[in-house]
């Protein structure tokens, strides 16, 4: 519907919308995160959910203890290689549409443990991440900002057409391979269909 016609009708007291707008409006205002924290970032996540920062203002206060009821996975903290298969499996068990926020330096890249042997160098090696939050740890305001960015992203998703949202397409996978413990590292060490590291030209 034409934007100007919509506002013209609204002035006359007639509110019109499309199914896509209604659907996205409902989804973006009831994002239920999965209740799990991995390290110190989880403390900031808890603070975000508590009364001072109050993520309930954005409709995200219902932290679900079961992945079957969750829409959003906040990877809050260091993902060790021991924990990575469990995180991927939890992501697989979430129903579509599902979103991931990688919170903090560890979750996006390994952070201060990047040179270590036991920490995964970013959860985006195995599952698609929608919003990255830098910081060590990020403040609750940063998590709220990421949450609002995610709401913006959900608002822009299309129901139909060529650029429709990925979770609506039948050929788009909902589960990603769970890495297994190898002799020295996780096998495979990354999922190439998900992980596209930037190519850096050195001169």
């Amino acid at each position, binding site marked *: 519907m034409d934007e100007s016609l919509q506002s013209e009708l609204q002035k006359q007291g007639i509110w019109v919308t499309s199914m896509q707008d209604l659907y996205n409006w409902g989804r973006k205002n009831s994002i239920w995160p999965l209740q799990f924290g991995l390290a110190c970032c989880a403390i900031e996540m808890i603070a975000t959910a508590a009364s001072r920062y109050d993520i309930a203002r954005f409709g995200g206060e219902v932290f679900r203890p*079961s*992945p*079957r009821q969750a829409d959003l996975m906040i990877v809050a903290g260091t993902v060790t290689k021991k924990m990575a298969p*469990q*995180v991927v*499996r*939890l992501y*697989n*068990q979430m*129903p*579509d549409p599902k979103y991931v926020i990688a919170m903090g330096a560890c979750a996006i890249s390994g952070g201060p443990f990047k040179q270590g042997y036991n920490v995964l160098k970013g959860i985006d090696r195995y599952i698609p991440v929608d919003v990255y939050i830098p910081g060590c740890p990020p403040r609750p305001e940063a998590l709220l900002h990421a949450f609002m960015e995610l709401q913006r992203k959900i608002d822009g998703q299309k*129901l139909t057409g060529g650029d429709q949202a990925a*979770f*609506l*397409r*039948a050929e788009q*996978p*909902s*589960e990603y391979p*769970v890495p297994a413990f190898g002799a020295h590292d996780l096998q495979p060490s990354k999922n190439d269909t998900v992980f596209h590291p930037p190519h850096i030209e050195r001169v």
Partner: protein
Amino acid sequence: MHTNPYFFLIIFVGVALVFPLAPLALAWLWRHFFQPPKPGADKNATYECGVESLGDAQIQFRSQYYVYGIIFLIFDVEAIFLIPFAVAFTGLPVGAFVVILVFLLLLLEGLVWAWGKGGLDWAK
């Protein structure tokens, strides 16, 4: 107009049917027209904590466990009788004191007997 006084029950039944069925029908329509279902091995797994389940849920306790059950009963009954004994200790006549000592001795004897029989060794 004369109506059956129980007519409202039919309305109630209708609402009770529509209220749960309408969202289910909407979800079915949504699945049919927009969002294809994507079941998978992890998604259909019984356990939902990220950890793979292993072993069998239908396990049995070994029957040797009954020895611990009986010995636990000794201490349990002992505690029940000792608490009123301790509360009323200062006002007890000599006869009552001797009786409770005999009672404790009997239980102690049972414990020593069970211990001697190897009842406190964990059954393999």
